């Protein structure tokens, strides 16, 4: 009897031990920087950190510094939102060339011979859709029910309600970019469960979504210039609206210039002023520019990234000139990574531009023609951006710059207004347009009117060139060329367009980028753009 009891007790003991060991298989992260969602949102300030995560996706590539990335299929540093945007909008055009064609995908991008396997195109698609996913998650985690359940105070709840609107604006930005570059995208919102591949939205559907979403949230957003720094306001939403209306003929084959002018007028009347010095929009302290509507952050220590400003400033440094120190980075920079194509240099040809502050071109003994892309001593170079402040103080870090990327600034609104006026939009007048153009000209000429133009000069060809002179290397050029019918076809060829040193026509289907093949493979709802 005693033996049986002992045996039973032993058996019971063994069974209990085994069960507790099996329970050990439930592991939770030990690391305070990795938490499950409920744990994360139980911390004070977590919602603001999550909002910073969505904003941060424009600036950062991951949570572990500049070498980390939340997305794959592309070099981590290159996957930065602003950088892929800049590659696709600027490197595909006459404004710039990248010397190191070994870097995957760059050669095909800048010679306009890309295909659906291109890592940079995949990076853009993935990064923008990640922005969408981040917003959707934030909206799911910040519903009034969740907030109440997590014991968030009503004051905080009201504040978080604004965060939600800003997150939606950032999602609209991503869908605007996808509409512009790909003409389609998988549509997922906060109601789509995780792991579900979204249905394909065509350009019209994306246009309607971006427009209605922005119009819906606009009244709830903070008034222009009234929000905390680093956060967006109504002017940001209006800026996207202005852009989609300006390009509506391309996107949905409809003339919406009047609607564009309306949004421009609203921004122009919102209290933004031009920076007194053109170059102060591109310095290490450019976030202070009165012209800034929304800039993508960069900080040499706290917000380290291989984004467009770090790339442009290190890349601007000449292989011969070794002029990095003057721009606040290492003397050699990246050894002459970026140079200008001749057609861009020609935009500043003539005495009209002899004292133009926007002409930061360095020619030296260089040949303006680039016959060999790998030869970094060929081609003129640029000195527009700097990691020194407006007063000349060097940035904190000699690789990662403090300079923010000017995504939206007032000068762009000036020129959009002018373009609407030239295109005869209601709500925009030629006389006002002239003052907007000349305001930029005078600013560029240190207040002098010597380069001012007459109303008769305001033509479509003029505005296309003037936009490049004012806004080069700011992520606009491809979109502008397409709107003016100069990107594809052979009307306008530039060096290395279509893979010829003098430029060759490219087919019209290239106005849209291909859907990345990995995206097609993982989402059966998606179809490839025609031509690819």
């Amino acid at each position, binding site marked *: 009897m005693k033996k049986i009891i002992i045996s039973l007790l032993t058996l019971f003991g063994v069974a209990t031990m085994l069960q507790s060991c099996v329970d050990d298989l439930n592991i939770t992260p030990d690391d305070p920087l990795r938490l499950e969602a409920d744990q994360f949102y139980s911390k004070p300030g977590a919602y603001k950190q999550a909002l910073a*995560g969505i904003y941060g996706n424009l600036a950062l590539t991951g949570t572990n510094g500049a070498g980390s990335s939340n997305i794959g299929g592309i070099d981590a540093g290159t996957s930065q939102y602003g950088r892929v945007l800049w590659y696709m909008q600027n490197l595909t055009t006459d404004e710039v060339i990248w010397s190191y064609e070994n870097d995957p995908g760059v050669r095909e991008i800048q010679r306009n011979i890309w295909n659906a396997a291109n890592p940079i195109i995949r990076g853009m698609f993935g990064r923008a859709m*990640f922005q969408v996913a981040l917003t959707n998650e934030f909206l799911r985690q910040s519903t009034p029910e969740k907030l109440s359940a997590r014991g968030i105070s009503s004051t905080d709840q009201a504040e978080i309600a604004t965060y939600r609107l800003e997150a939606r604006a950032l999602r609209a930005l991503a869908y605007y970019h996808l509409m512009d570059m790909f003409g389609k995208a998988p549509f997922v919102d906060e109601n789509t469960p995780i792991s579900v591949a979204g249905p394909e939205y065509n350009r019209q559907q994306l246009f309607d979504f971006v427009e209605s979403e922005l119009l819906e949230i606009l009244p709830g957003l903070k008034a222009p210039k009234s929000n905390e720094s680093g956060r967006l306001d109504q002017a940001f939403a209006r800026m996207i609206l202005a852009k989609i209306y300006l390009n509506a003929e391309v996107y949905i084959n409809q003339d919406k210039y009047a609607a564009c002018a309306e949004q421009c007028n609203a921004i122009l009347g919102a209290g933004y002023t031009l920076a007194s010095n053109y170059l102060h929009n591109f310095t290490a302290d450019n976030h202070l520019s009165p012209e800034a509507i929304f800039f993508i952050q960069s900080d040499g220590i706290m917000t380290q990234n291989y984004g467009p400003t770090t790339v442009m400033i290190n890349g601007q440094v000449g292989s011969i000139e070794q002029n*990095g120190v003057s721009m606040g980075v290492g003397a050699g920079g990246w*050894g002459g990574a970026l140079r200008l194509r001749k057609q861009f240099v020609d935009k500043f040809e003539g005495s009209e531009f002899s004292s133009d502050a926007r002409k930061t071109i360095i020619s030296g003994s260089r040949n303006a023609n680039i016959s060999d892309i790998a030869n970094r001593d060929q081609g003129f170079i640029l000195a527009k951006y700097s990691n020194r402040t407006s007063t000349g103080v060097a940035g904190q870090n000699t690789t990662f710059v403090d300079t923010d990327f000017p995504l939206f600034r007032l000068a762009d609104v000036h020129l959009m207004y002018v373009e609407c006026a030239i295109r005869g939009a209601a709500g925009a007048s030629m006389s006002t347009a002239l003052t907007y153009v000349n305001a930029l000209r005078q600013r560029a000429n240190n207040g002098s009117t010597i380069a001012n133009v007459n109303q008769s000069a305001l033509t479509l060809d003029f505005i296309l060139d003037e936009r490049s002179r004012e806004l080069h290397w700011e992520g606009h050029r491809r979109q502008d060329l397409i709107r003016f019918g100069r990107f594809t076809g052979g009307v306008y060829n530039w060096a290395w367009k279509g893979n010829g040193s003098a430029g060759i026509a490219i087919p019209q289907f290239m106005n849209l980028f291909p859907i990345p093949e990995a995206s097609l493979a993982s989402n059966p709802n998606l179809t490839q753009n025609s031509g690819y």
Partner: protein
Amino acid sequence: MKTLSKKLLFTLILMPFLVLSQGTVNGVVKDASTGQPLPGVNVVVKGTQNGASTDFDGKYSLSKLKSGDVIEFSFIGYKTQDVVYTNQKTLNVSLAEEASALDEITIVAVGYGTVRKKDATGSVSLVTAKDFNKGAVVTADNLLNGKVAGVTINAGGGAPGATPTIRIRGGSSLLASNDPLVVVDGLPMDSRVLATLNPNDVESFSILKDASATAIYGTRASNGVILITTKKGGKTLQVEFNTQFGSGKKFNKVDVFSANEFREFILAVDQNPTLFPGQTLSDRLGSANTDWQEEIYRRTDFIDNNLSVRGNLFDRIPTRLTVGNTYQEGLRLTDHMTRNTFALNMSPTFFEDHLRVRLSANYTNTKRRNAPGVEGNALTFDPTQPVYDPTSPYDGFFEFRNGPGLGQFAPIAPRNPVAQLLQTNNRSINRKVFGNLELDYKFHFLPELRAVVNLGYDRDQGYSHNQTSRNSLSGPIRLGLPIGNNEYNEGVGINKLLDAYMVYAKTFGDLNFDITGGYSYQKFENNGFFTRNQNDPDLVPQFFRGDDVVYVGFFGRTNLNWKDKYLLTLSYRRDGTSRFGENNRWGNFPAAAFAWKMKEEFFKDSSSLSDLKLRLGWGITGQQDIGVGLFYLPQYFTGDPNSQYQIGGNFLPVGVPGAFNNNLKWEETATYNAGIDFGFNNNRFNGSVDVFYKKSFDLFQVAPFADGSNFTNQGPANVGDMNVKGIELNLNYDVVKSDNFNWNINLNASKFERRIDKVAAGVPLFVGFTGAGTGGTSQIMQEGFTPFSFFVFKQLYDNTGMPIEGAFADLNGDGVINLDDRYIYKNPDPDLVLGFTTNLDYKNFDLSFNLRASIGNRILNTTRSTRAYYSFALNGVLQNVSPYVYETGFINQSNETVLSDMFIENGSFLRMDFVTLGYTFQNWLDKNVSLRVFTGMQNPFIVTKYSGLDPEINGGIDATIYPRQRQFLFGANLKF
């Protein structure tokens, strides 16, 4: 032991009486091959009870003898010898080992138990001391390299004490770990233990190759299992001291221009105005003659001392104690490793052998000064510049600079590799404690039933301190000035094990069977701390807390043996792992094996055929170490100090949801194996042939995730399929076997072929670097092809056979040469792997060497593909160029040129790892002392057509390796 002593005592007491009445004989019994005395030999007068045993010194005494008595000398494992008594006073006998009898008792570890080698049903290879490689054995894997068909071991270079990459049958995974499970005395560990274990403590390796053998290890079994058994104590006192000294140096160099050749080259470049228009390169030439590959390497020392004492402590605890010390210098100037090991093994038995206890405790302290990899800079650095420059602000080392200041260095230039070595002081200490306690209890009331409990513990603690001079350009640069490096790093990993199982063994008539059932629990924890560079005020220390990993397994196995002809093994494991979510946490891993001893069936009376066994096996195994942490779990990640976003003037670490895949699970492999073991002439010639087919499913791969559906665009998923098929041959032949002359050879050959059956959505994966640019790839994972096949451009050549720069076949015919024109050209897997070892003993001389060959493996030689261009001569400063430029004539390196198929070379090789020659003094100083002295050479030669330094690299991409050295060795083994 006790009985033996009693018998001896009895004999001694009675002796005086016996001597008076009858004849007495004395003598010594020795081992015929080693000359060592044999204790415990039974000496009996045939047909009587009159007998004795030999003592520790092999001595015996037998009395009450009449002339004509037949005295029988018998000892297990030896041939019994009969001698007729003819009134001799002394009778010394040498017993010869009995080959077949030895095999009879050869025990093979199979995990949670052992089997007799002749009853093994799976593909199991046993390597014991007599087969071990000789020469400079620094890490335990050196004993094994090239010995077993289907097992490749590659340290990837000559770093002292490096952990090798081991592949058994090519592995089963695409991108997850292909490392086998290494189990030391029942404690599963990772393969790094091979570098910390004292090779002298290894008694045997048992390598489980097919799933019928490995499935008992469940989710960790797919890549094979290496079971290491360490040496135990003995009944007799034995002391062994081994000492070895080696002196090594490099034996070849990567081909670069010498200083004078470089001058000629640069002058010729200047003659061609199109290469560097407007520049005269020769103006930049220096006046020194430096061979940078001579400067960064040196002659090395290797010292290895090992003392082991084996005996019976307090007359009842068989104990073995080993103390080892190994000092090995690396070829790179500052590199050296010191390893001190301490091992204690005790195996007492209690309650009349009912309880066997085995305790093993190991401590290893490894100190290393690590040298940075400077080979790339040594190849590139201008040979006309000196090593030292008295005016240099960089601790007197020459560096390219534009002025006298510390910040006036040339921004783009290779850094002086000698300075890199000497200005870096990177020291690490690793302390590892591991061991286990095994209790094996045979029930008193039911001796057929045993209960075994095995408790294991392994603690690995590492520290490293990495410093570089503040005047060093190879350290970090901040605000345009070198600031030096000062990093401290520490980490600890702990691994705890509990195994408990019962074994029941019984014979019913013709059926002999055993059944094992048990439970295993293992937990791994780790954490660490890293200061990062303390000279850089922007950097903050990092703490690292790894997620615990827990395994729980239930297992069972039965061996059925009918009439000693038909053997059946069935095993089953149910394994749980903390790496996956609850719905995928558990896996079931069955296996079955059948063996038919055809010798017993058909050739029972054959004397020439001594063994013939057919084996068939099948099993399912898993692989759960896919290296993605808790990716199954939705988590929020917080930005590190450099990943913040500023709102309202405050920097906030970003909070970002992490991607996850809650469907993640283990990879699964089904293996089919068929083999034949054979032996002739008392197994003097024996061997085995195995064929296998492995099919792996649900292989971990980074697969695209539908954009916007998760928090990334790609991530780990179980999507790939792969198969491996192969054939292995192993032959042993005792060519000559006699008292004075023994010669045996071992030859093994294996061939395997890996093919990818499925990748995610059929979209190939691009992997492997090119050696140039950021993120370019040179290899591909594509369905229907070998993993890591090279994916390159097809080079076009002119009429004279010269490659045309940038001209490649437009393979897709679209008129544009772009990445779409690459094709699959060869792969790094060998077509055939061969191993050969031979031991030759003549009288007291012994000679041993091995040969290994790999045939058909291909290598991307990036030392050429990135450097054989004229334009490479100038990149900010002059750079040395691969002399292969004369054969390519290439001007510029580009995306395509670095991926030309002309840089894929045949890496076949034949290598001798070691040759040793020894002489043994059997009775040195004293008849109980034997001394063997030996000399030898490590890495005496390699035969290859490969143009790079060494074709034996891992992964097929040669981006310079740490060269292996050639060593001359001298040593002595002392035994008493």
